[in-house]
């Protein structure tokens, strides 16, 4: 039976809470309401309000208290309600959560997960469609992951909660109700790895989160023109799985990276830099980024054209083949 990503996350959280009674959830409106996206639906009813905590309205408090809970031996999973509301928590994330292990010379482990719905394309108002991943990927001490499907959501949330490192878990809200089969007994690829989700020989297309389904459509459309596109789901935005990307580009000779976040100093820039640094002579064309623009996220009436979609990514694929 096929499962929506939001339900797969719910199931994944439920399973780790059943396995380990030190796992607890903390966030705004996550208890009785089940979260604004219903990801935690029913969990407070089954695990009680000490393990599914409806927090006061304060994001610094959510992350700051999670740090203290982790020091006391718990494994907190925070929910930030929307991408644009994580910034009041940035001080705790960057100056405290990311650094404490390093400061303590490995003595203090903070297994905190911060779940954040991210990305646009849902017709939302301001601050509800952003892609803040680069801030986190730039911060040493954090792992950053983003699932692209129900299966990945189930696997990655379970691995993130079990990780002894802090994990920023970016949920593509556009895909919450995207359905897919979920194998609960599979052995997933480790948390820091990328995955080839569509094999191809002519061009490597790297995407993550909500753009992976789009990238698969790009591959299908390109196939009609006789071009074989390999799609890599990055899964882990920090660390970046260079090996999988390099091996693919060494075969295809062409690279396009797509993300919703703004272009400058984004994940695309990092991936392109690594490829030219390490396997420059494998490239037959310049590596191309297809991204959001270097503007604040636009009013939703404009988001359709602002976001990198099928057409813009296909254009980039075409451009790569002009070399």
């Amino acid at each position, binding site marked *: 039976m096929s499962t929506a990503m939001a339900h797969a996350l719910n199931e994944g959280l439920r399973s780790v809470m059943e396995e380990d009674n030190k796992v607890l959830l903390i966030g705004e409106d996550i208890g009785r309401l089940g979260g604004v996206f219903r990801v935690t639906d029913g969990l407070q009813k089954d695990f009680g309000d000490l393990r599914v905590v409806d927090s006061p309205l304060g994001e610094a408090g959510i992350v700051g208290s999670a740090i203290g809970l982790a020091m006391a031996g*718990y494994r907190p999973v925070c929910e930030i309600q929307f991408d644009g509301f994580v910034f009041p928590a940035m001080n*705790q994330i960057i*100056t405290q959560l990311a*650094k404490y292990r390093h400061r*303590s*010379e490995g*003595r203090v482990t903070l297994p905190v997960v911060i779940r954040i719905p991210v990305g646009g394309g849902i017709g939302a108002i301001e601050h509800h469609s952003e892609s803040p991943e680069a801030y986190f990927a730039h911060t040493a001490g954090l792992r950053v992951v983003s699932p692209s499907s129900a299966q990945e959501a189930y696997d990655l949330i379970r691995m993130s909660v079990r*990780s002894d490192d802090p994990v920023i878990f970016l949920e593509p809200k556009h895909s919450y109700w995207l359905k897919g089969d979920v194998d609960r007994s599979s052995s997933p690829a480790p948390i820091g790895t990328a995955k080839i989700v569509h094999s191809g020989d002519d061009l490597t297309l790297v995407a993550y989160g909500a753009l992976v389904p789009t990238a698969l459509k790009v591959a299908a459309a390109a196939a009609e023109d006789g071009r074989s596109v390999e799609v890599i789901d990055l899964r882990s935005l920090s660390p970046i799985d260079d090996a999988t990307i390099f091996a693919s580009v060494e075969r295809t000779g062409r690279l396009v990276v797509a993300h919703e976040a703004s272009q400058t100093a984004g994940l695309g820039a990092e991936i392109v830099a690594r490829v030219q640094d390490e396997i420059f002579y494998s490239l037959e064309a310049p590596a191309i980024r297809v991204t959001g623009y270097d503007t604040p996220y636009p009013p939703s009436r404009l988001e359709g054209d602002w976001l990198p979609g099928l057409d813009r990514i296909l254009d980039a694929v075409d451009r790569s083949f002009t070399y």
Partner: protein
Amino acid sequence: MADELFTVLSPDGMLADTDVDVDNLRSMYTDMVMARRLDTEAIALQRQGELGLWPSALGQEAAQVGAGRAAKAIDFIFPTYREHGVAWCKGVDPVSLLGLFRGTTLGGWDPSADNFALYTLVIGAQTLHAVGYAMGIVRDGDVGTGDQDRDRAVLVFLGDGALSEGETNEAFVWAAAQNLPIVFFCQNNQWAISAPYSVQSRVPVAQRAQGFGFRGVRVDGNDVVASHAVTREALEHARAGNGPTLIEAFTYRRNPHTTSDDDGRYREEAITEDWTTLDPIERLRKHLRATGTGEEFFAGVLAQEAELSERLRAGCRALPDPEPSSSFVHTYAEMSADLERQMNGHLEYVAAGKEDPA
């Protein structure tokens, strides 16, 4: 009243009725003297170039020793970066306090060894960690059981400047709403670097608590007996499941903010001199002398001071430089292949430099 100052030991050494016995008073005295010696030696080490910086706690020994001694071993403490006297009371190796300021570490001790978290430089950030830790105590069921060996609380330190931080105010909200076993111990030393308390607030620190829905208590922070009594009561209140307390220990930072600060640019020396007459150690010395504690005791304390001085001087210089790999090794529980590559490149670079000093 929240703005009354609770005092039992007056500046001239008169002690109001109290259940503290003389052994306890002598022990408090010793701890304060040792805390000051630690501070004095660290300043000297900074002047000699052995430390990059030192935030002095001169004048705040009574607040710190009073509070520090009130905490049980099972309570957990979150300090700022100036709680040298509290660290001393909790049994943290005083030499390990120097590493952060010498540049050999960003921490220096194991928080779980003495239930004493690392120093926190970001003002107010530790108040939320304290809230989370107290939430953990509640979930462990270690509050309000009546079992003295089980019930625990959190004691978190902050300064008057931290009251203006949003995170501190969030911590107050969370602690109040969940009735957490936590004591906020604010040393109002009246100066946040160059900003006097009037920049932060128009009301006494303790009065703030009322608006959040918990108790605020003002205590003479230069009175070790009062600081101890107030903190002990607040911790008992918290362990019993009766919720948080904000303690304002009213005191004065007699030295500049740190050894890099120049307080002559923003305050009158005369005020600092006034506070010198209210010295916390001096008033307890007067009391002990007046009530029959003899020279033998004071000579003994002096000998302990000399021993600590020697230990700090030798220990500071012996603090090992960190390994070049240490940053890489401790950033993640599980190091990525990418970071390992960066580390190996760096180690080769460092090794090459050592082989060829030119």
